């Protein structure tokens, strides 16, 4: 299990990296936003999963100590909310 603050930071950062939502101040993200509303459709959801599992800058490997997640747990789609992704990451991330 990963603490909420770090789980939310990983979630937000990976969503921003996937949809190129930079600078953050220009693209505010709310916990109940769906991925599609943030520019991540079903075709791009796998890019988000790749960021979460493999991105050394924003994803779980960037944490100290690094974390990992079983990709089959990331059962998300374009209508999943930021909170949905965050809950999955928080509850399923384990030490790498």
């Amino acid at each position, binding site marked *: *299990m990963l603490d*909420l*603050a770090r789980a939310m930071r990983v979630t937000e950062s990976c969503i921003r990296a996937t949809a190129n939502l930079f600078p953050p*101040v220009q693209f505010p993200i709310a916990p109940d936003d*769906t991925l599609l509303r943030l520019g991540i459709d079903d075709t791009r959801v796998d890019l988000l999963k790749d960021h979460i599992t493999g991105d050394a800058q924003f994803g779980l490997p960037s944490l100290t100590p690094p974390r990992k997640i079983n*990709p089959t*747990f990331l059962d998300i*789609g374009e209508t999943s909310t930021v909170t949905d992704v965050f809950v999955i990451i928080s509850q*399923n991330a384990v030490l790498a």
Partner: protein
Amino acid sequence: MKLLICLICLLVTIAFGSLSTVNGQSVTLVQAIPLNPEKTDWSVQVAFSPDPTGNNIRRIFIVNVDDGTIIDLNNRVPLTTGVYSYTPSDRFAVAGTGDDAKLAKHYELKALIDKNGKLISTGAPVDLLLENAETATEVRQKVKTIDEADIYIGGEINGAHKRRAAFSAEIKAQKFKPLGSWAYTPFFKLNASTDPDADPDQMEMGLNLRYISSRTRTYLDNEVKIESERDFENTNLIENPRLTFLPTSYPRALRERKNGKIVLHKSLLFLNPFIGGEFGKNVRSPLKAAEGDGIARLVAGVDVRWVFFLKHNEKAPDINWTTTYQRRWLLTDELGFKADENGDLQLRTFGTSPRDYVRSKVSYRITKFFDVFSSYEWGQVPPSFKLIDHRFRLGFAYKFRFGVE
């Protein structure tokens, strides 16, 4: 007395929970975190959805449901969007050690949120944070809408006076499974009609191995498939690599801050260009002389998707407009057929001339699982390259996606 307290706590929990759902404010997760090995100092992290912002949290505390005692939460510190940290007034009871450690009592967080002048009660059970756990409990997301379809079944019947009714069917079935940076799925696709002037007559089945590169924003699909007519009269064995580019949408998100003001867009445009090839061999042909011929094609095209959100706060788009255009350059001579009135194939073309295909579809969401749609199709698709001569359709679709509740 203890039983009565527990019962009251349970009723309060149910009442608070239902109220929070109705009012669209919830506590997503609550974690109790021991700050030292002796577990004398604790921190509590709370995630809200949506973020109520600090000053709107009027009251927040934890109830020990087992004995009715209250633990106050003080010293609020915002950590990130919607997540706050608190210092509890008492310590939590823990049973077990290592991965088996858990809270010894049933703790429930309660919060009173001021939302636009209305006071909303919400809450959630408290979890013990097992920071160094080696294993995790599987928690998967429930699937909500038709747009995440792994199975798609569409159909229509149309007819006219003194004319035989025509049946059309469109079926897609696939389920990607992760394999490191790769994903794979067996698949089956059918697009066919009994109307000879509007029959793509394309059936595909095989295995797709996909490499996902978030760095280059691309998918490399590698399909090994049987490409056939629905009755296997004309069948090819094909290896189909395809590189799909996934640039960011336009605009990048529905909500954007410009000149200090929040701008809400109503639509998003997604463009996915792709290039690839189709290489293989004919296995069965209506023209025996062509049987066993090699096949080599280059393919390029673009998938366009334009989504419209007519109402704010809707999770799925109300209108979906998708268009696919693809062109095949044939590197070897291939046959093109036309079905006559009896459904028999008649040779129409022979050679390497490029074959185009375009398809556009607009769908309007009536319910979560039910769409009405209008579509247009023109062009030629393998294996028989039958001409789809401006096929218009108006129909319905029922879709669902595999999910875990």
